[in-house]
């Protein structure tokens, strides 16, 4: 069927997909691999979300109700690891796979076999990591940051955790190399760098971040492994090492990592807003430069996570100012999005709603970030729920919202079906109200002094915790509803037009039918 449509605007002479289950295991097709990534990410999102529900259920009231403290800590640790490495990052890589070749007019990714491996490492890595839930001593429970020496007390789970991270690193680095090679080498003639859609640009820069920091992370956890099993003393003061050294290496990875999770989101928002404002993006080149400066600065701010460990004053000051400087290019972006909408002919379909919510709510997260960046006040906020509120605003209403927006925006292109607009709007309002009920009170809790990563708390925190938990359950349920919407859209629904959205631009909307044929741009398109 797709072949017939395809011949309208594209002479597809490639092979169709193979039949049966093995299609998905052996595939080298960027669209198949993109789909695998996205579905895997959705599954992990639900898995990690279930853990979040356990956390919020325990915190519904003060006192110990449901789980014992050790299991609670396992939940916070595994929730974060799964969401970061299993849900958010693979979702972006899935989008990269689906979109980058189509956006630059390439027949596929540059290294298709390696692309398959990048994906197929993930389920195995998470099998190793999840299996630890059933091991002696339980799953890792020292937090996703895995600080030494606490993490060295992990039971049998410990080596599995380390090796799972090594595998995730291999997968990410291979994925990133593939994306760089694709963008540098596979652009259609005429697709100059400064003509590339911003999603391609942001992923291009993200890929460099990945290649630069994932190996450092692998090094850090390798040191943990040898400290535990082979007698090294990297993080032991007794041997002349330093536990703080671990934090430096971890956050040298960790801070660029949070930008790895937000730069592609910037690209998505920069695609969606112009479409529904029916105006070209305001300040394209400044967006490119802002992205590059954010990426550059992200390497020199890591110790803002460590203001309270006892760094020399010069360090505290440097990292404070450097961190605040990131707000400048980030502000440029927000300004450009708002300017794009200025006097635009706007409509508010679901992707646009999520994009708009992104702009507002991500900015709230950015502001709390700025507060945290001020060293003296971070002494109060550090390791409280204020930090939890901050990073959930940037990650859930930031990264995750952009992924949901992207799903609504491009799903018609991928499947050939429109999602149900009413259902999409219900999903949006349900999510957006509940997510604020969930995370906004956590600012109050943090400012009032509630520490993060604890299963029980003093009664003064009871009210807002209950509110937050109610928001949490509602938000969780809304995402089950989202899964249902996705399922219905894959299965059927109103037929999407080739352009899908009235104001949509770009090769994938203007030069390819909906659904996209299995092979697209086997001959390069003409770029105007």
């Amino acid at each position, binding site marked *: 069927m797709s072949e017939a449509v395809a011949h309208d605007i594209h002479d597809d002479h490639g092979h169709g997909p193979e039949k049966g289950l093995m299609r998905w295991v052996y595939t080298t097709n960027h669209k198949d691999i993109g789909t695998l990534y996205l579905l895997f990410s959705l599954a992990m999102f639900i898995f990690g979300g279930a853990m979040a529900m356990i956390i919020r259920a325990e915190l519904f009231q003060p006192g110990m109700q449901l789980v014992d403290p050790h299991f609670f800590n396992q939940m916070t640790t595994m929730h974060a690891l799964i969401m970061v490495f299993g849900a958010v990052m693979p979702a972006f890589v899935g989008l990269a796979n689906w979109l980058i070749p189509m956006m630059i007019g390439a027949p596929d990714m540059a290294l298709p076999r*390696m692309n398959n491996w990048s994906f197929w490492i993930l389920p195995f890595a998470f099998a190793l990591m999840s299996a630890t839930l059933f091991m002696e001593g339980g799953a890792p429970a020292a937090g996703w940051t895995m600080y030494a020496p606490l993490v060295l007390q992990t039971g049998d789970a410990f080596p599995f955790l380390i*090796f799972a991270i090594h595998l995730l690193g291999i997968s990410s*680095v291979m994925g990133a190399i593939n994306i760089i090679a694709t963008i540098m080498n596979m652009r259609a003639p005429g697709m100059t760098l400064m003509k590339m859609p911003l999603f391609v640009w942001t992923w291009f820069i993200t890929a460099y971040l990945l290649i630069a920091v994932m190996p450092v992370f692998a090094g850090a956890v390798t040191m943990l492994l040898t400290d535990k099993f082979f007698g*090294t003393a990297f993080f032991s003061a007794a*041997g002349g090492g330093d536990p703080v050294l671990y934090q430096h290496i971890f956050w040298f990875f960790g801070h660029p990592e949070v930008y790895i999770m937000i730069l592609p989101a910037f690209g998505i928002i920069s695609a969606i807003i112009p479409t529904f404002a029916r105006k070209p993006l305001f300040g394209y080149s400044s967006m490119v430069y802002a992205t590059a400066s954010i990426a550059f600065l992200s390497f020199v701010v890591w110790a803002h996570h460590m203001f309270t460990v006892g760094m*020399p004053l010069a360090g505290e000051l440097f990292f404070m100012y450097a961190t605040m400087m990131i707000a400048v290019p980030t502000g440029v972006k927000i300004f450009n999005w708002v300017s794009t909408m200025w006097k635009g002919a706007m409509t508010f379909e679901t992707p646009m709603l999520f994009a708009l919510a992104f702009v507002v709510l991500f900015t709230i997260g950015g502001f709390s970030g700025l507060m945290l960046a001020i060293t003296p006040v971070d002494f109060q906020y550090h390791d409280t729920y204020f930090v939890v509120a901050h990073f959930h605003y940037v990650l859930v209403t930031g990264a995750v919202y952009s992924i949901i927006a992207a799903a609504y925006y491009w799903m018609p292109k991928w499947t050939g079906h429109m999602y149900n607009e009413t259902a999409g709007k219900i999903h949006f309002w349900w999510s957006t109200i509940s997510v604020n009920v969930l995370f906004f009170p956590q600012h109050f809790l943090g400012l009032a002094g509630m520490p993060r990563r604890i299963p029980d708390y003093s009664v003064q925190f009871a009210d807002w915790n209950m509110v937050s938990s109610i928001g949490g359950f509602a938000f969780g349920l809304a995402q089950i509803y989202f899964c249902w919407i996705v399922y219905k859209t894959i299965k059927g629904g109103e037929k999407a037009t080739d352009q899908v959205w009235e104001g949509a631009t770009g090769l994938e909307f203007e030069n390819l039918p909906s659904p996209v044929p299995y092979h697209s741009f086997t001959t390069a398109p003409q770029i*105007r």
Partner: protein
Amino acid sequence: MGKMAHAHSDDSYYVPHGTKWPIIGSIGLTTAAAGFSNYLNGHNAGFTVMFGGLLIITYMMYRWFGQVIQESEDGYYNDQVDVSFRMGMGWFIFSEVMFFAAFFGALFYARALSLPWLLGEGDGVLTNIYLWPLFDEGWPSNGPADLGGDFQTIPAWGLPAINTLVLLASGVTVTFAHWALKKDNRKGLIAWLTATIILGYFFVYLQATEYLHAYNDLNLTMESGIYGSTFFMLTGFHGFHVTMGATMLLVILVRAIKGHFTSQKHFAFEGVAWYWHFVDVVWLGLFIFVYWI
């Protein structure tokens, strides 16, 4: 909606259809990881399992690279594919550089910051007085608890200097091999490649004797505090990379003998040569910062 124009369809990019090697690789990696984990947790059978996993990985690599080599020989790869491979190898090497950077970072941090603090520098005065009052030795150090007991270090101008010469010489010989290949001088290529490989493995051999000397005579072990940690992890990972590099060169040698490569197209050779120069440069860093100063 846009109309398509057709450009260079006769010279299209090679996109393989289906591959089973990645999934086999994943199974291998997971088996090895699970086996080794179990071994570390005290189950000796895990070692065998790990070994099985490594065998699977080796088999996978053999077959996967074998397939790529075959396709290359059959002329499936145009210049654009060649560029993709180059970029892949280049950025892979960069990721390796960053892996070593983590360990160099640990070394610099320990030497420049954490050790001086333990010795009472800056606001570490009271730490030193109350916690480690007798601790007054700088680098090389195994820390205030004297972990692993007294040890001696390996002087830079003995074996390490010879090793530097060996590796630098191998960097020269691999370049001679490249020049020979570019001049279609097959004999020269094979001879210089062989020399490079011998130098490579000779380096590994010398490293091994150095390790034995350290463990047997100097009491310098992995357990010798931060000095032993950084020393063995940096030189150990480097030695591992030299072994891998020399093995890759060996594959190239076999291919050269089989008549693969032309004076124009020989990316596999170049990629491995880049890798070889990379281990060379890392070694220079090691020589300077680990052995010498």
